[in-house]
């Protein structure tokens, strides 16, 4: 079977122990407005257009498109979404990568070949592979077969999840995962629905069950200004986490604007907000530490 991924990043050093390869699976049940991998949200292929890379007098994409979906003016090209069938010929023809198809169908065997390339680095650094996204559990069958192949090769595995999936899915892959990176946004359910499009109940329940099952877990909390950077949320979260066994560390991941360009390239809107001030981050760190957690800022 094939899955759909949108990136493979090598020498990933913030996604678990050692030197890792991170595989980004496409598709996510949440729609957090701060998401800095917006191209990972949809389960379908997408067209990514970066006008800065587009050559003035080049019309190769227009010529390549079998559906006459592309037009060009002095601001760059426009794609008529009604005509576009996402066939990808335009991106293939684009000489500069101004046009890219996001999303590549790949079999677990092909993916393994890519992952295996860096075995020597995993071995020396006690690293391995991290499945991230999107939400990797959206493609649980594909994820499972990729994990299974990793286990056969003795490659250390990490799954980075938002937790919003049925617990059966976790049960399916659990034995093949050495470490979970579990994202926890906020405790307030209403706000969670408002900002991510879904309730946090399932996420919290799954975390409890996962903890009980004896798996190792790193908690990752993105710090989004005015969404979840209050002391109150930190205290509630810490209290909740205290009841969960198996937590190694809490990673606080401050919001940054690195993803903004991607929104532009996807022709989507983004909010203009400032990152959480450093002093506030330190305060939040102290709160979690008071509850006995080891805390790291960054991945």
């Amino acid at each position: 079977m094939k899955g759909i991924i949108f990136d493979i990043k090598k020498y990933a050093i913030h996604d678990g122990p050692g030197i890792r390869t991170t595989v980004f699976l496409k598709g996510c049940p949440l729609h957090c407005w701060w998401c800095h991998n917006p191209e990972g949200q949809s389960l379908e292929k997408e067209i990514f257009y970066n006008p800065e890379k587009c050559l003035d007098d080049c019309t190769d994409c227009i010529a390549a498109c079998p559906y006459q979906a592309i037009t060009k003016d002095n601001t760059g090209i426009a794609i008529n979404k009604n005509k576009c069938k996402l066939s990808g010929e335009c991106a293939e023809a684009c000489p500069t990568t101004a046009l890219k198809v996001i999303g590549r169908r790949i079999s677990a065997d092909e993916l393994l070949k890519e992952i295996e390339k860096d075995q020597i680095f995993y071995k020396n650094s006690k690293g391995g592979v991290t499945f991230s996204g999107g939400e990797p559990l959206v493609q649980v069958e594909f994820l499972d077969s990729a994990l299974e192949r990793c286990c056969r090769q003795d490659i250390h595995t990490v799954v980075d999840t938002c937790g919003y999936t049925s617990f059966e899915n976790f049960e399916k892959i659990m034995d093949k995962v050495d470490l979970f990176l579990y994202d926890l946004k906020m405790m307030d359910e209403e706000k969670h629905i408002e900002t991510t499009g879904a309730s946090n109940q399932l996420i919290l329940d799954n975390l409890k069950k996962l903890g009980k099952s004896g798996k190792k877990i790193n908690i990752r909390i993105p710090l989004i200004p005015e969404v979840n950077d209050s002391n109150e949320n930190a205290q509630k979260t810490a209290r909740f986490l205290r009841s969960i066994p198996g937590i190694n560390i809490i990673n606080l991941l401050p919001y940054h604007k690195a993803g903004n360009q991607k929104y532009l390239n996807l022709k989507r809107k983004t909010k203009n907000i400032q990152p959480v001030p450093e002093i506030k981050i330190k305060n939040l760190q102290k709160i979690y530490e008071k509850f006995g957690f080891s805390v790291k800022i960054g991945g």
Partner: protein
Amino acid sequence: MNNRIKKLREQSVNTKPFISTERALLLTQFYKSPKAKKVSIPVKRALAFKYILENKKININEGELIVGERGPSPRATPTYPEINTHSLKDLDILNSRKKTSYSVSPEVKTLYKKEIIPFWRGQSIRERIFNEVSEQWKDAYEAGVFTEFMEQRAPGHTVLDDKIYKKGFVDFKNDIQKSLGQLDLLNDPEAFYKKQELRAMAIAADGLMILAKRYSEKAKKMAKKETDKQRKKELQKISEICSHVPAHAPRNFWEALQHYWFVHLGVITELNGWDSFNPGRLDQHLYPFYKKQIDEKSLTKEDAKELLEAFWIKFNNQPAPPKVGVTAEESGTYTDFALINIGGVKTDGTDGVNELSYLILDVIEEMRILQPSSMVQISKKGPDSFLNKALKIIKTGFGQPSVFNTDVIIQELLRQGKSIEDARDGGASGCVETGAFGKENYTLTGYFNMPKVLEITLNNGFDPRTGKKIGLETGDPSDFTDFQELVNAFGKQLKHFIDIKIEGNNIIERLYAEYIPAPFLSILISDCIKNGKDYHEGGARYNTTYIQGVGLGTMTDCMTSLKYNVFDKKIISMKKLLQALRNNFKQQENLRQRLINKTPKYGNDDDYADENLKIIFDIYYQAVNGRPNTKGGQYRINLLPTTVHIYFGRVTGATPNGRKASAPLSEGISPTQGADIQGPTAVLKSASKIDHAKTGGTLLNQKFNPQLFDDEGIDKLMQLIRSYFSMDAHHIQINVVSADTLRRAQINPEEYKNLIVRVAGYSDYFCDLNEELQNEIISRTEQAKV
């Protein structure tokens, strides 16, 4: 760093290099003397050497602990008119050029006009070379197919082992005497030559001892006049040390450093050999002295550090001899490539890292100085703490130390036929060049422009830049029906130019052996004394000649592009592609972008591209490796560029990888600038696909953002390097400067005078680099951000 060192360092860093005629004048005086006319050439060279050391100005600078300068004062740079007689125009260029200039006073010009030029014009080695080499050689040289190292500097490229710490020059003279006594005048046809050479060595030994004696007396006199009690004591001590070394083996740490320094001065006064000279495995050599004195409590760690720092400054006081023309292009820097080796293994194969290795790292970090350069040898037995500490210094961003794989250096040397002990005692010098220290003459003869050879192949033997036919007619590439035909044509063309280069080398090696023997250097390199033969005559135990391949990344991407776009995918015909190259992609930017972005590239762990890397490597290796040189040794390859990839790029037209005419080539074995987009693990995997053990050194440059160097980051970087080395790779150097900083430095050089960056196998002041090279380093750095 204490105040004394701070002052000396500032003096060294802030004094602009200037041309001194002292050596040239003394040499000329001696060559004109009646005595010079009566003796053999080796004896003449030795007597000239002695005459210079007897008569040169000597000085002991304020606060100095290690004494002796090559010129009359720090940063004075002598000339070597017997090798290259600079014209008045050369002197003007040296004085006025934007980068790496040397001050030339009006007096210097007058002396050159009156004394030096009239005597040497016509008999310098440079002139002899250009008179002797073939027209074919000159055509290839002028086209930029290769450079010639020996046209302005003597073969040197060698490093010392531990012999001078066990012997003084009185002992060496005894060895020379013994060798003289064993000459077989009856049966050995070379006996007369050997006798001359050995006599020359003995005279050269006297020369160095005389120099030391003069320093001893000078220090004594100064001590008498000195009113400061502590300085008086120091001067008395210096006088005592200089009366003992280099005549006798050193007895303690201070003497060992001073002893080496005299030897160093001797080597760089005798000739302007490439890569100055170098103590090699300094931590190994000095450790016995250090350990003994620390145990006896006659030396503190602080004392040792101060002496080492004083020693470091002496290197920085001696800028590289002035280079002009193509030689300045290939090596545009003040640094003279003394590369201190620390770490590695001992002769018995056990881990060589000791307390002094760490102390020397402290010195490197504190000094932050251009010369000497430094490197760490990392063996699989070496502790992580050593590599970790080295990386913490690298993190501060001045390009030192570079990181080498001891285990592969040993493999390389063993493959070349060295004994296991000699291999373990070896290391890397210059930029990345492997050698059996103290026992090998390993001469680098010039850079070889592989992409230029491809350009000539694609033009059926013609150089499109000049329209001149300089190569073989290997066929019109538009008629080639498959990729293999192209590979064969390139292989033939490359072999043709390597043959031309080697023919030239055979002449040049003999010119040095005949006219410019080096009896002083010959004392130091085993087994010149035993063999009664000069260093240039094949006297050393091992004799290796190198031709340095350049542009492997560019070359691989070119072949991959031709294979992919012309033969496999048939995206463009050979004819049309060649047309585009001739037009430098004018109005074909989309084709050019396709070649850049939509074609597999070396450096991404992509076998499609990396297979071509192996093919190119093999063609180059087969053309060079194992061929005989004039010294009884063999040719080998190594892959490094210093700064020549800029010059070679300038003379090479547009290339099939989308590179525009005149843009720099890739350097060392690094991927084309900007072509590696899969991160460092992919680069290292790609680079390890060539067989490093079959080379005498490869150079890989990797840029990292400073952000990757937190404690955890350093740990991962360490594992990254260990992994690369476990794939049997030779070397990696790491630059950690942000592109923004570099851009600011380009705009305001005054504010960034101290900014040192890694160039290619060595570090240099960023502001001293020419603009093209600066831009190239900025673009490499930008890439690191991704």
